[in-house]
Structure formats: structure tokens, C-alpha cells
């Protein structure tokens, strides 16, 4: 199974060495700068920048493909809708901007260890400690969220295999109910493991 959510790809490129906070700020700046991307030509220029960044980060083509694949269906559906209601130029701009932003966000996670991202989030949310919110807890919740994606995908694959093996036709209920039950069981076990690892201490 490939890494979901663009998990870290080890490396020593300039992008890998850049602090996590700088990369997150860069991502925010890029999102703001999308106001400037109003024509297909500018989408092309922005795409060139993104490609250069991926080359600089030395992300293997296979990983890029794994990350881009889930965006494909989304891009096709959104592009078709925009094509019908607003014309091809708008379709290229809207779909292009969204896909490029997603690719940039993915590049941040591909070149940054999750622990570094979480430390940045914890640092950024430290002022919330004044109103009783524990920044460490926010970091832990994000870490568990990221980790749980892989766990749930594994559970889903196991349920699919078990049902195929038993000749059960996959349906919403026959798939969702066992997935929910096993996810809740996993959450229970995880809670116990967190307590054993002293999370509440």
C-alpha cells in the first residue's frame, strides 16, 4: 500500500532542510497568490513553478503519481462542471489552481517529518494555552488523525477481503457496519495504549 496523505519521503534537498514553519507560511502565501492566477497562461506558469519545486525536492515520479491519482477524479468532475457553466478558460483556471495548491500542500508533507509539522502546530497554538487549550493535545490529535488514515484503510481492506472470501456481496451496510465496529474497537485499544504510554501523565 502506498503512503496515504503524502507521508514524508526521506531526503536532503533544500526543501527538506527548510524549517516546517517556513514551508507552511509559504503554502499560505501561495494560497493568497492564487488571486493573481486568472488566465490559463498564468496557470501554466504556476504549474512550471510547482514542477520545479518537485524536481528540487527530488520526489520520485512514482510517489508523485501516487499522490496525483486521487486528485484526478476530482479534477475531471470539477472541470466538466466548470466547462459547462463557465467555459474552458474558467475550467482550466479553477481546476488548475486547486490541483496546484493540493500538489503544493502534498509537497510540504512529503518533505517534512510529521513530528516537525506537529511541533510547528504546537508552537503556533501555544498562546491558546491561556484559555485552557492544551497545545500538546492539539498536536497529538493531529498525529492520531494522520496515523488513523492508514489504520482505517487497512481495516477496510481486511473487511473487503474477508467478505469476498465468504462470497458476501459488498454493500453499504455490509461494509460500513463492520468498518465502524472495528474502528471503534481500534479506538478503544488505542486509548488504552496511549494511557499505557503515559499520555495523560
Amino acid at each position, binding site marked *: 500500500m502506498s503512503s496515504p496523505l503524502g507521508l514524508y519521503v*526521506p531526503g536532503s534537498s533544500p526543501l527538506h532542510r527548510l524549517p516546517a514553519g517556513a514551508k507552511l507560511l509559504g503554502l499560505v502565501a501561495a494560497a493568497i497568490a492564487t488571486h493573481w492566477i486568472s488566465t490559463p497562461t498564468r496557470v501554466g506558469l504556476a504549474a512550471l513553478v510547482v514542477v520545479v519545486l518537485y524536481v528540487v525536492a527530488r520526489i520520485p515520479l512514482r510517489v508523485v503519481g501516487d499522490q496525483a491519482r486521487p486528485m484526478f477524479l476530482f479534477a475531471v468532475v470539477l472541470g466538466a462542471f466548470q466547462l459547462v457553466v463557465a467555459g474552458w478558460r474558467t475550467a482550466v483556471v479553477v481546476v488548475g489552481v486547486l490541483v496546484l495548491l493540493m500538489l503544493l500542500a502534498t509537497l510540504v508533507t512529503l518533505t517534512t517529518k*510529521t513530528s516537525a509539522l506537529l511541533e510547528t502546530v504546537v508552537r503556533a497554538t501555544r498562546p491558546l494555552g491561556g484559555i485552557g487549550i492544551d497545545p500538546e493535545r492539539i498536536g497529538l490529535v493531529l498525529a492520531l488523525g494522520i*496515523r488513523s488514515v*492508514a*489504520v482505517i484503510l487497512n481495516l477496510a481492506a481486511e473487511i473487503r477481503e474477508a467478505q469476498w472470501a465468504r462470497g458476501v456481496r459488498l454493500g453499504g451496510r455490509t461494509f460500513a457496519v463492520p468498518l465502524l465496529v472495528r474502528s471503534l474497537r481500534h479506538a478503544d485499544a488505542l486509548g488504552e*495504549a496511549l494511557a*499505557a*504510554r*503515559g499520555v495523560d*501523565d
Partner: protein
Amino acid sequence: MPLIEFRSVSHHFEVAGTTRPVLHDIDLRLTEQRIAVIGANGSGKSTLARMLNGLVIPAAGTVAIDGLDTSKQARAIRRRVGFCFTNPDAQIVMPTVAEDVAFSLRRHRLSRSDVDARVAATLAAYGLSGHSDHPAHLLSGGQKQLLALAAVMVTEPDLLVLDEPTTLLDLPNTRAFADRIRELDAQVVAVTHELEIVEDFDRVLVVHEGRISHDGTPTDALAHYRKLWA
């Protein structure tokens, strides 16, 4: 070795409105380095293990590690007692191998370089150095269990509790895992169905229907356990 004491410990669970007794009046003093707990499914052995680091607080009686009461001094207990679960997937919290081991040290007030050094040394000790930046969910079952063990041992606990740690492993991985346990300096309490790995333990407890039905050497305990189900 830490002194483990169970004093008149009983426990029960509430299941669908009914009370199901799990442990009955257990009295134990454990000082040996390697102690195994064997018994059938539902006999109460996992509950007994969970009491060692305060995951389960007994309904009656007390459990103490070197005089620390698990019901009152949970934080001190967890600093001294590490716990390794059957399913490593439930125990791995962080996305990558090194990050998960480092997670165990986050409250130890160590500098970044000290954390990195301890994580690197621990990963090397458990044969995981080459996987430090790999996603944890892509490891094999045996590697995941070693990671779960490494994440516990990096905190250098005095007592390690293992709850059926080899149930999901094949024979080569079970033996490799057992070899790692043999090399530990810490006191170990292992709940297991894998009778082969307890043969060289110092003391074996057989739990049957919530009571210690036998307490002795591996040879005697295994003979007793087999006789129970003959």
C-alpha cells in the same frame, strides 16, 4: 528487580447488566526477573497483566510495584512499568518509525539531540535502524511488534509487561522476539499462549478461572497446564 505485590486482589466486569467475576482473591509476591503468565482465553491473565501498570484498577485489594500503589500513584507507576500489547497497530501512534519511538520520550525533558541519540540507539538495538524514516504502517508484522517493543524500551522501564506479544507473529518472528526479551535487563512479566518461549523463564503462573492454579518452575507449570486441558 522490582517487587510486585498483589494483596487480596479481586476483580469483576459489568457485562450487559450482569457482573462477571474475573479474578478471585489473588495474593502474589514476584521478585524474579522473568515471569510468565499462562492460561486459557478468558481466564483473567490479561486483566492481571493490565493491573501491573494501572490500566485496570482492582475492584478489591491492592497491586503495588516496589511499594507504589497502582491505584494512587499512576504517573510514577507508568514511568517504571512499560506495557506491550498484542496488536502493535493499536500501540503505534506516530506515522514514522523514529517518530513513534521519540513519542515515548516527549515528557522526559530531554534535549532534541539526546532524544535523537536515544532513538537511534534503540532502533539499532531492535534492528530497525534502516527503517527510521519509513511509515510505520508499511512494516511487516514482526517489525511492527519490534517497533512497539522499542517504543516501550526507549524509556528504560524497570518492569516490562507483555500481553500476548507473539500472537500475531509467525514462528521465526516469535523466536526472534523471544530472543530480544531474553536479552533484556529489565524485569519481564509475559502473558502468553506460546508455551515454547516460557520454558527458560524463572517462574510461571497458571491462571485458571480467575485463580492462580499453579505457581512454580516452567516444567511443573507447563505439565499442570497441559493436564488441565487433557
